[in-house]
């Protein structure tokens, strides 16, 4: 039987209790914190009257498409940079430079180049994750012990095979890093949607703010948290299936 995370359960019950108590005693104004009932009503209304599901789908699609493009470019490019010193010397400074740029600072430029459509948002998220992910993958490749290279050398593998073996060696770390970067992607999608969007969770929060609809704002924030938590949960859940060889106990 699966073990229940009791400390989490107790703390969440405590939070709800404090929330109800503070509202009943009138400690916090409704403008800052809605009652549980108001929040529940907001959720019902968002899903039944305001197509909130479409907003969720829009945000999720943005995050996953941007992450998909980041990963399929970052992984082979990191392997190439790791294997080619000159390429690494050329690209590494640019990657480091762009990596330090705050993503919101790039919003005006992405709008200028790509308008306010989906492309601009995906490009923005791509910039936010690609440069982080590639650096993390190169770090993982740098950590491969030299014995691995001695082994692949002695097998006389060709360049492509050698890269494939490096990829396989670092795949569990790449998987973990993907979990982290997808979290950053969620931060950036909300920023992008808050500034220029007509759909998405961020857009809904911005609209709620315009009309001082605090319950809807909270509903949007909680939804984001749940999706992030769920993504993380799924990543962790599938780790043992993808990396069975890591889970086996030593004799």
């Amino acid at each position, binding site marked *: 039987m699966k073990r229940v995370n009791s400390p989490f359960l107790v703390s969440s019950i405590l939070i709800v209790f404090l929330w109800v108590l503070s509202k009943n005693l009138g400690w916090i104004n409704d403008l800052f914190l809605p009652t549980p009932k108001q929040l529940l009503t907001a959720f019902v209304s968002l899903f039944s009257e305001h197509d909130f599901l479409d907003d969720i789908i829009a945000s999720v699609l943005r995050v996953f498409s941007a992450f998909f493009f980041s990963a399929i470019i970052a992984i082979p490019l990191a392997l190439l940079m790791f294997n080619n010193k000159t390429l690494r010397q050329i690209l590494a400074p640019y990657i480091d430079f762009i990596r330090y740029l705050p993503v919101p600072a790039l919003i005006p430029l992405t709008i200028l180049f790509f308008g306010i459509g989906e492309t601009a948002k995906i490009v923005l998220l791509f910039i936010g994750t690609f440069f982080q992910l590639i650096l993390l993958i190169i770090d993982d490749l740098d950590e491969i012990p030299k014995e*691995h290279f001695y082994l692949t*050398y002695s097998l006389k593998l060709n360049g492509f095979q050698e890269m494939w073996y490096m990829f396989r060696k670092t*795949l569990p770390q790449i998987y973990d890093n993907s979990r982290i970067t997808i979290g950053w992607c969620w931060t950036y999608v909300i920023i992008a949607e808050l500034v220029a969007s007509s759909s998405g969770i961020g857009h809904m929060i911005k609209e709620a703010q315009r009309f001082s609809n605090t319950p809807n704002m909270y509903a949007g924030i909680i939804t984001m948290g749940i999706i992030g938590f769920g993504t993380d949960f799924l990543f962790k859940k599938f780790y043992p299936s993808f990396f*069975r060889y890591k889970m086996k106990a030593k*004799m």
Partner: protein
Amino acid sequence: MMIEIQGLTKRFGQLVVFENFNLSIRKGETVALVGPSGCGKTTLLNCVTGLDKNYDGQILINGLNSKEYLQEKRISIVLQRYSNFEWQTINENIRSAFVNRNITSEEQEKTINNLIERTGLLGFENSYINELSGGMQQRVAVARALAQSNEILAFDEPFGSLDIENRSSLQILFREQITKKNLTAIFITHDIEEAILVSERIAILKKIPSLVTKIIETNNITDKYSQEFNSLKEEVEKTLKL
């Protein structure tokens, strides 16, 4: 000669590891390298196997310059810190020896099964590396090196971390395969008994700049308790102390 090291000079900055170092190894012969820690045994192995190409002097392998030889062929390497492909099963790890080689799947299967049996890994064919003990993991590395069928093997304290039983069985397997396939090997070890058991000749190296101070013929002694074995052991120990 299968391997001829002629006038090898190797420096790490100001540190001179080898200066005009010479050593010859005949075809089908195993030479054990013994010497104090830091005398350059592993560096020598790296130069021969092509892992380190930055040296002066010449290394000839089968009459060819080592760089030329290594463009076509490889030397099987087994290190003390074993390295296997953790995402592959034992069977797949040994099979990786046949990558880019024209060997029929029947032949591959036969070699793998034989080596699995000989290395005591029977029943673990489909286990992953992480499921095995350190000794068993090292046996996989040895099995793969032997499956490669390269004409030269380079072993750098391969059995150093194993218990006596594992060590002994792998020493026997190593000797058997080397003799059967007429392979040439360089075997680095700190264990004098092991050096006698696995090699035809023992090259004793002194501290850097390293030189071969003495080469001792082992005459293929296998009986650890014989008088001849003990005298040989004493001779190696005495030379090492000089």
